[in-house]
């Protein structure tokens, strides 16, 4: 049987997704369900003086209305930050309470205050309009730059500062900078983004009055973690009385890592009102209340020699947390950002200093790439600026500072096990026809257009684990992953995984791995995920960890199955287990034609006996059945890397940026399914390009989100994008048996600086802030024309 790892197996999921048969949370309806509508703050910052539900309670079809008072009475806990970060001075971070329904104050537009449950959605909406909330409106802190000098949003949190964190050595950096020929300086704003999963958040809650168990169907990237938080911190129900199911989920991108107010409130309320509850976010609610991404202001400096060697790097960043610190909110701008800010380079000295501040905006948390896009944008922009100031080619300066020996101890944290950055950049250069750029630029100029080329080399740290390291860094849980592999007596296999697919195609990729390990046809393998009642515990999917952590747990569980199978087959074949080889689904006794298929062994393990004779195929000490599980905690993160090159053509008359060519060369180690990996790269690139050219979440001074619909928030569209030219290099990860590295976020991480480097290259080095909208580019072109005229 040919190996399935490495082949373009078509996605098992596609049939149901493309024929409208996906089963999402809002497809679930429970008899006798009520409909929930949340009453949300229209103000960015206010004190709640009074919530009057009397009129609304009398409205037609209303079952109940609950408020922050009820939450407090029932002692239901709030939302939490998952990582504890310490400041440079050793003090612990400061986090405000975040009750599921606000009782005393609201801190962003969309902060929920009360909830109506009614027989129909229309009745719930009508009643919601009758709930009167009396607010004392306060001055909102909406501007990130001014946040530390503004009034404190939360009692006891001075300067709105959560922490002032340092990674690296200030003294060493100072010394390195003193030796430099030149210091390159760069100020950048990493624009705020709204994740915009295609499926809005939703939950359907079913409280069973007989078993007293709550079932929460929800749009989550990590149902097990949601259950843990809802039980341990929310106090909604003990874990054994709480089942969380995340069925098909239409995209997460980090925004569905968090457990949200609505899930806690509806789970708690379902028990209280003894009725099932359905809540589905409208698109405006998604814009307002899904966690947002990015939103940094950074000042960076790079110390270089005149021949382009890097001596040191520092960055001072202010990161926006929004109104509250959520699960990955505090780690995204620190350990997911700081270490990667020195890029793929040998950097003798470096530090990252990050001040995370609260503002009256939606909470900011992990968004595809989480910290690493911000880091890569910083270093790759400043490296390009250095090349420009030194008159060097952007590829040359990168090559000059690449490490060539692996494992490579990266400056700030990571020990990178494997990689070949030179090979990746060389391949990208060739595939992009880098040398032909000058001719293409000339051609564009003959049409009155400007053309620019941009290069980015990146590495990232993903496959978030190992537990002892992440817990040492402040993570509240271990980040291993679990799997269980069950052989049925009749030979099919069910694989249970603790990771969750919301677009990643685990049903295909994981089945490929298991098929190879067990020698069972892929059609006979099912992958089950997303249900706390099915399979063991799990940490979920984010940080490109499903394959490198969850996939390896599957491999290990399969290996245990094969080991047990060997012992059984040996006994059945009257040989010693050492003499039995396993290949292509068959246990074969060496130097003989004696063999048993794994299906026969599975059958025998469940039916361990024969007629007329007391005889078991099971060796002494082995129990019946063929089910194994594994908890995998890898030795390190995984470190994919690559180089991307793109070309843009700009119309100076309108400022329109046409993305003309995009080449991505990535090293994801072993690739299990190239079709799926290419899809991941395509999607990642689209989001990274979105940040570079289109997407921008904007709040006005009073804290109103002014980009709260698709009329104003620009998503990248298919016709904005060129055909992507993808290539791969491969250095296998040494930290897992498959040699795999994460691929889900790479496109997003690399694309933003690649596109911006190209735009700025076209503008002869003129800095422009993210996103490079047509008007900004048009203005830059106009100024360029003016200064060129002056020079002439």
């Amino acid at each position, binding site marked *: 049987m040919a190996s399935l790892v490495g082949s373009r197996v078509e996605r098992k999921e596609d049939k149901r997704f493309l024929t409208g048969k996906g089963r999402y949370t809002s497809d679930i309806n429970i008899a006798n369900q009520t409909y929930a509508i949340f009453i949300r703050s229209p103000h960015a910052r206010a004190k709640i003086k009074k919530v009057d539900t009397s009129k609304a309670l009398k409205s037609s079809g209303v079952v109940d209305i609950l408020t922050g008072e009820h939450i407090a009475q029932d002692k239901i806990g709030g939302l939490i930050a998952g990582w504890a970060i310490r400041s440079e001075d050793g003090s612990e971070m400061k986090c405000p309470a975040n009750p599921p329904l606000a009782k005393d104050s609201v801190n962003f537009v969309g902060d929920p205050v009360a909830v109506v449950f009614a027989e129909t959605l*229309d009745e719930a909406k009508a009643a919601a309009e009758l709930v009167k909330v009396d607010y004392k409106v306060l001055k909102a802190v909406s501007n990130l730059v001014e946040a530390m000098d503004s009034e404190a949003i939360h009692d006891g949190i001075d300067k709105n500062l959560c922490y002032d964190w340092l990674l690296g050595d200030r003294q060493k950096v100072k010394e390195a900078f003193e030796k430099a020929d030149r210091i390159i300086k760069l100020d950048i704003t990493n624009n705020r983004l709204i994740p915009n999963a295609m499926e809005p958040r939703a939950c359907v809650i079913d409280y069973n009055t007989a078993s007293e168990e709550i079932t929460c169907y929800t749009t989550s990237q990590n149902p097990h973690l949601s259950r843990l938080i809802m039980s341990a911190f929310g106090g909604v129900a003990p874990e054994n009385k709480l089942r969380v199911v995340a069925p098909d989920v239409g995209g997460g991108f980090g925004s569905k890592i968090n457990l949200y107010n609505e899930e806690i409130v509806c789970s708690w309320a379902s028990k209280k009102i003894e009725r099932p509850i359905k809540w589905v976010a409208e698109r405006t609610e998604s814009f307002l209340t899904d966690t947002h991404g990015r939103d940094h202001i950074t000042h960076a400096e790079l110390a270089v020699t005149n021949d382009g060697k890097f001596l040191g790097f520092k960055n001072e960043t202010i990161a926006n947390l929004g109104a509250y610190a959520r699960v990955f909110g505090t780690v995204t701008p620190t350990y997911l950002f700081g270490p990667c800010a020195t890029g793929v380079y040998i950097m003798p000295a470096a530090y990252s200093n990050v001040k995370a501040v609260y503002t009256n905006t939606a909470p900011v948390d992990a968004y595809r790439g989480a910290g690493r896009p911000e880091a890569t944008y910083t270093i790759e922009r400043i490296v390009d600026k250095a090349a420009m100031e030194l008159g060097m080619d952007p590829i040359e300066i990168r090559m000059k500072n690449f490490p060539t020996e692996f494992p490579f101890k990266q400056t700030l944290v990571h020990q990178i096990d494997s990689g070949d950055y030179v090979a990746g950049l060389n391949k990208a250069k060739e595939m992009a026809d880098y040398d032909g750029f000058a001719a293409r630029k000339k051609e564009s100029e003959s049409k009155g257009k400007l053309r620019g080329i941009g290069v980015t080399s990146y590495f990232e740290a993903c496959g978030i684990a190992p537990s002892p390291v992440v817990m040492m860094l402040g993570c509240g849980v271990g980040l291993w992953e679990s799997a269980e592999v069950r052989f049925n007596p009749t030979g099919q296999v069910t694989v249970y995984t603790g990771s969750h697919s919301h677009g990643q195609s685990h049903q295909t990729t994981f089945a490929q791995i298991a098929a190879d390990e067990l020698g069972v046809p892929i059609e006979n393998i099912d992958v089950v995920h997303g249900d706390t009642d099915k399979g063991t515990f799990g940490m979920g999917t984010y940080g490109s960890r499903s394959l490198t952590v969850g996939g390896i747990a599957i491999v290990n569980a399969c290996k245990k199955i094969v080991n047990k199978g060997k012992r059984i087959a040996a006994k059945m074949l009257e040989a010693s287990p050492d003499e039995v080889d396993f290949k292509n689904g068959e246990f074969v006794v060496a130097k003989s034609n004696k063999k048993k298929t794994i299906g026969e062994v599975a059958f025998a393990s469940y039916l361990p006996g024969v007629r007329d004779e007391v005889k078991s195929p099971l060796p002494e000490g082995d129990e019946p059945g063929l089910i194994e599980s594994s908890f995998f905690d890898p030795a390190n993160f995984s470190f994919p890397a690559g180089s991307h090159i793109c070309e843009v053509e700009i119309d100076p*008359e*309108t400022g*329109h940026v046409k993305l003309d060519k995009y080449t991505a060369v990535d090293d994801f180690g072993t690739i299990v399914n190239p079709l799926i990996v290419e899809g991941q790269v395509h999607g990642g690139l689209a989001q990274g390009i979105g940040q570079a050219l*289109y997407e921008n979440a*904007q709040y006005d001074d009073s804290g109103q989100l*002014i*980009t709260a619909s*698709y*009329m*104003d*928030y*620009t*998503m990248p569209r298919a016709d904005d994008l060129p055909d992507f030219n993808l290539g791969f290099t491969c250095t296998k990860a040494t930290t897992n048996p498959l040699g795999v590295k994460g691929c889900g976020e790479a496109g997003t991480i690399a694309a933003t600086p690649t596109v911006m480097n190209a735009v700025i290259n076209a503008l002869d080095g003129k800095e422009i802030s993210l996103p490079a*909208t*047509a*008007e900004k580019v*048009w*203005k830059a072109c106009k100024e360029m024309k003016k200064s060129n005229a002056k020079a002439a």
Partner: protein
Amino acid sequence: MKTFNYHSAKDVKEASKLASSNSAFLAGGMTTIPSMKLGLASYKDIIDIKRIKKLSGIKVSGKTVTIGATTKHSEVASSKDIKKAIPSLTALAEGIGDPQVRNRGTIGGSIANNDPAADYPAACIALDATIHTNNRSIDAEKFFRGMFETCLKSTEIIESIEFSIPQKSSYQKLPNPASRYAIVGVYVAQHKTGINVGVTGAKSSVYNEKDLVAALTKNFSSSAIDNVKISSSGMNSDIHASAEYRANMVKAFAKKAVDAC
């Protein structure tokens, strides 16, 4: 959405009779229905006019193209007769919204709504359109009054729009990157009787850009536009485009339109 009475009118007379100051005619519903769903608008009566056969269809004569009010954008976009007579008009229809919108949205609805960023109003101005209603015929320049405002009375129904076939014409639009409505759309048309430059998106309502008309009348070439100054006063300004940018884009897209004529 608030409750309302739904009527399906069998002819224009019945539709008009059912109408009041608290009613809306429903054709494609591309604006009416979302506004009602979002709670921005509510009506006592919704009068569906889609079943009135007379209101739909395309007629092309030697001098004019007449399009029934409930004709869908997709029907205009795919009409070979219109393409032959006024290719810029089919191109405009093809560029409205997305396929779903084009398969439901109607020309009459677009014009009656007079969204400041809609495409068809620019065509009406550039192509000397006459808007025929159930009781009068109105010149395009008098029809559009201001933002979302026309001279239609509440019981008045657009029956058809009659466009003059120009000698040459082109519509060029800078779409809003988010909504794909026009940030600026410029429709240049040269008729035997004169030149029109219909501009949409730039101001509170569509208008004929007289300075460009004057310049192009003297010399119908994009270089003639270079020396025209378009003032940014009165131009729309939002997070996607400032007034200054819009003013410059009117010029840039007028040049593109002239070059494409």
